[in-house]
């Protein structure tokens, strides 16, 4: 892929005798919205952790925007944004203070921060609650704030690890709309999700990973038509032999 912004080559990660990733290779184009699907423990979060530089691979090569993630980690971290699976926010800070902390950690200047903050809190329907301590937020509000923290520095590549899990349908649609807008702005988005509907709705391409291997990789509609099934969930079951069971990992 000529304009690839994310390149993963023969990626292997072992945790003692457990092989979490077994030779995964993948290229993601600039501006693409890529969905990473797989059952629990398939290796999705491990890929995200390696891509954002907090986990070292056992072997293989990973680069983002031409920078080797292992050798130029700090450079990579400046233009990626990560919304992790767990709702990681400080409960004793307000929503705005959480955003301010991450704005400062990304060294965003005050003027840019204010503009980004206003836009993000407005778009994710948290403007009214920005000055409330997050310990009083609902689960959905916390997830949306977590999303804001990942985007406060206007990153070029965005990793969304189960961004809508635990959200009510209304919150989920707010986030989906915003993800579409990010794509329109030309951001590259890597999304892991358990919701097949979400992947089908949003993603340009999806990769299905199981037992650490990439077992399918195509646009959702191509996967559906190639496998002669009605939707992405059936594709998933066909490849992995099992349904997504969200409760398993919650």
């Amino acid at each position, binding site marked *: 892929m000529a304009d690839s912004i994310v390149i993963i080559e023969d990626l292997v990660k072992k945790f003692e005798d457990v092989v979490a990733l077994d030779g995964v290779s993948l290229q993601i184009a600039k501006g693409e919205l890529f969905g990473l699907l797989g059952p629990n423990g398939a290796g999705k979060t491990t890929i995200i952790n390696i891509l954002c530089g907090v986990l*070292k691979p056992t072997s293989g090569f990973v680069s983002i925007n031409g920078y080797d993630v292992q050798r130029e980690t700090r450079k990579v*971290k400046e233009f*990626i944004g990560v919304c992790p*699976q*767990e709702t990681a926010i*400080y409960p004793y800070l307000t929503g705005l203070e959480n955003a301010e*902390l991450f704005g400062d*950690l990304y*060294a965003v200047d005050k003027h840019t921060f204010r503009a980004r903050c206003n836009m993000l809190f407005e778009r994710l329907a948290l403007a009214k609650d920005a000055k409330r301590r997050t310990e009083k937020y609902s689960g959905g509000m916390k997830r949306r704030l977590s999303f804001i923290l990942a985007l406060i520095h206007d990153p070029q590549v965005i990793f969304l690890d189960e961004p809508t899990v635990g959200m009510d349908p209304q919150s989920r649609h707010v986030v989906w709309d915003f993800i579409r807008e990010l794509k329109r702005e030309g951001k590259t988005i890597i999304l892991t999700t358990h919701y097949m509907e979400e992947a089908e709705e949003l993603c340009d391409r999806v990769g299905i990973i199981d037992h650490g291997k990439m077992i399918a990789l195509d646009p959702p509609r191509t996967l559906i038509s190639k496998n002669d099934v009605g939707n992405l969930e059936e594709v998933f079951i066909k490849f992995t032999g099992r349904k997504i069971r969200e409760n398993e990992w919650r």
Partner: protein
Amino acid sequence: MNAQRVFALIKKELRKTVRDSAVLFLIFLFPIIFVFTFSTAFGGSGGEQPVYNIGIIDMDEGNASQILLAALSDTKILNLNIYGDDQTAQNDLSQGKIQAVILIPKDFSLSLASYQAAPDDPSRWINTTLTLYLDKGSLIATQAIPPIVQQVITLMTGYEKIVSLSPLRLETAHLVDVKKTSAFEFMAPGMFTFASIYIIFMVAQSFVQDRENGMMKRIRITPITPTEFMIGQILSYAIIALVQAALVFTMLYLLGFRPNVDLHTYAFTFFLLTVFSFSNVGFGLIVATIAKTPGAASGISFLFVLPQLFLGTFVGASLSSSVQVASRFVPNYYVTDALTSLFLRGAAITSQTVLFDLMVVSASCAAILALGVTFYAKCYKD
């Protein structure tokens, strides 16, 4: 290093300290309440019979002083150190190396001889005064040493019952000041470090909680370097330690602690407590490395808090001599010792004891902090 990132972490940590009621209580309210309760309720002495180091400045022109020294030595309670001049003896006294100084006057032998020649005619006696300087930083020394010395002098003159009829008078030079010093004031220097050691709990719990709820990982994803992160955290706790010290000092001041020292000494005290807080951050990091949950962090923290509490604060002075030897292995012993020298003994910041204490505190705290950072970084790199 990016100052914006460091300040962001400091701001975050201070907000947490103020807003988290459990942390607020543990770090600020508990030490103050404890200091108040302890200082008003406790302060006695105990343990086995101690031996006091006494400095002797013998200016006697005769030989009678040798009899006095032999008699003092025979008490088995006093360990005599002979000094050639008053200044050296006073320096050692101010640094806590000895607990008292006895100045034997040049007419001591003459006075004793005049008494022996006419024991029943006080008009023919040559009166003289032995001056006794006491360690104002030791409650036990100020109360125990004068009666012992007085008893020995009385025995020399043979007047066991009517002490006033003797040419030899014992004057305790600083005892007037010492009598004003309460048990609480003797304990005050140790109370400063008492408050600071609770930072161990805070550091351990904060790191374990952040790791457990994913914040540590989230912060690691940002471009902040490990150095910036650690500096931000350490500075936060140093600020908290300074605020703690100010609160404890205010509390002590309100309870009547008024050391006669200058502003430099106060500044030095706060500096020393800041340096000391680094060791507590180090211990906290070691606990955070071992503990998997915030609850476990609290439990393990006690392993580092209790020895320092009993060996290095005001509690240690009341324990046995063998325990006091063990005290030398905890960093806050040296902080308490330096503050006792400064506040109670009147030692200068540049005195040998205070500088030695500062050196030990700095070296041990730097080593503990380095160990904590290395230990934590090694275990949680991946």
